[in-house]
């Protein structure tokens, strides 16, 4: 059973994600995490001024439960199922990231330069986290789904719009790491 405390390989994680999707289908629901962001807006009262949020959020309670479960799962994964959480990257990736100023590459789970709370609240890092969040929240609703809704659910159902969205995800991601990262990091 020691393997469970090691990082899980792709051939364990992928089938588990499929299991999550099929479990939700069997419960008459569709797998898609980003819908929760819309629901959270609705709960906060955004429906009063914006029609897009005039939804019966109680009908989305099931998905909020999945979300709460995801938080609990992260807690369990970190506290009870991990010996250490260092991510072992391709050595070439580590070299590149160190050149960009990420000395924690190859020795932590997240880059401490960005996510360590003592670093996250300087102006630059806070802006990065905030802008990233805005892009994710805006983009996912504009595209009508995120990785779970398009790359897993949509593509599994052979939906052409989901293929376009996933191609978009990659265009955006490639622009970010190749063009924008060298501009905003490394200095």
């Amino acid at each position, binding site marked *: 059973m020691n393997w469970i405390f090691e990082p899980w390989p792709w*051939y364990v994680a992928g089938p588990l994600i499929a299991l999550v999707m099929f479990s939700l289908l069997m419960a008459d629901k569709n797998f898609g995490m980003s819908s929760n962001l819309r629901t959270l807006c609705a709960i906060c009262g955004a429906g009063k001024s914006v029609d897009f949020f005039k939804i019966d959020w109680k009908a989305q309670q099931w998905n909020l439960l999945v979300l709460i479960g995801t938080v609990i799962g992260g807690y369990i994964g970190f506290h009870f199922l991990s010996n250490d959480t260092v991510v072992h990257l391709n050595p070439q990736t580590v070299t590149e990231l160190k050149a960009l100023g990420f000395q924690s590459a190859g020795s932590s789970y997240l880059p401490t330069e960005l996510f360590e709370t003592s670093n996250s609240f300087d102006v630059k890092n806070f802006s990065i986290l905030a802008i990233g969040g805005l892009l*994710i*929240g805006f983009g996912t609703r504009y595209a009508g789904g995120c990785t779970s809704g398009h790359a897993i659910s949509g593509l599994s159902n052979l939906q052409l719009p989901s293929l376009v969205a996933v191609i978009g995800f990659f265009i955006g991601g490639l622009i970010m790491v190749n063009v924008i990262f060298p501009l905003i990091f490394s200095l």
Partner: protein
Amino acid sequence: MKNLIFLLIGVIFGITMFKSEAASWFRIYEMFQFQSFHMYGIIGSALLIGVVGIQVIKRLDLKSFSGETIELAPKTKGFNRYMFGGIIFGLGWALVGACPGPMFSLLGAGFGSIAVVILFSVLGTLVYGMVMKKLPH
């Protein structure tokens, strides 16, 4: 009882995201640099099982636990919203290294600063709702 099932599904998802390192910023960077098969293996194997499973569901007309026909909401036709929205999402995904599932897994794992990302992703969704009528879909 049904609520407990949804919670449990979320727990499995949250553990999987954390333990597979799909919630690691480093893995997302590595994926976008095509320097590891790991993330492609995760998404690809989920997808392969998904495609086959959904074909089986459709061809055998399998029913859900409640006895209903299994509904797969089709995506509305279009191009612009998927391409432009996708690109915007991809920029954010690569920048903060987490998408809307893993970010909640990270919150549970105790990475407090991800709360900034979560808060601003809710705001981003709010902004979309405010300007959506002016955007090409």
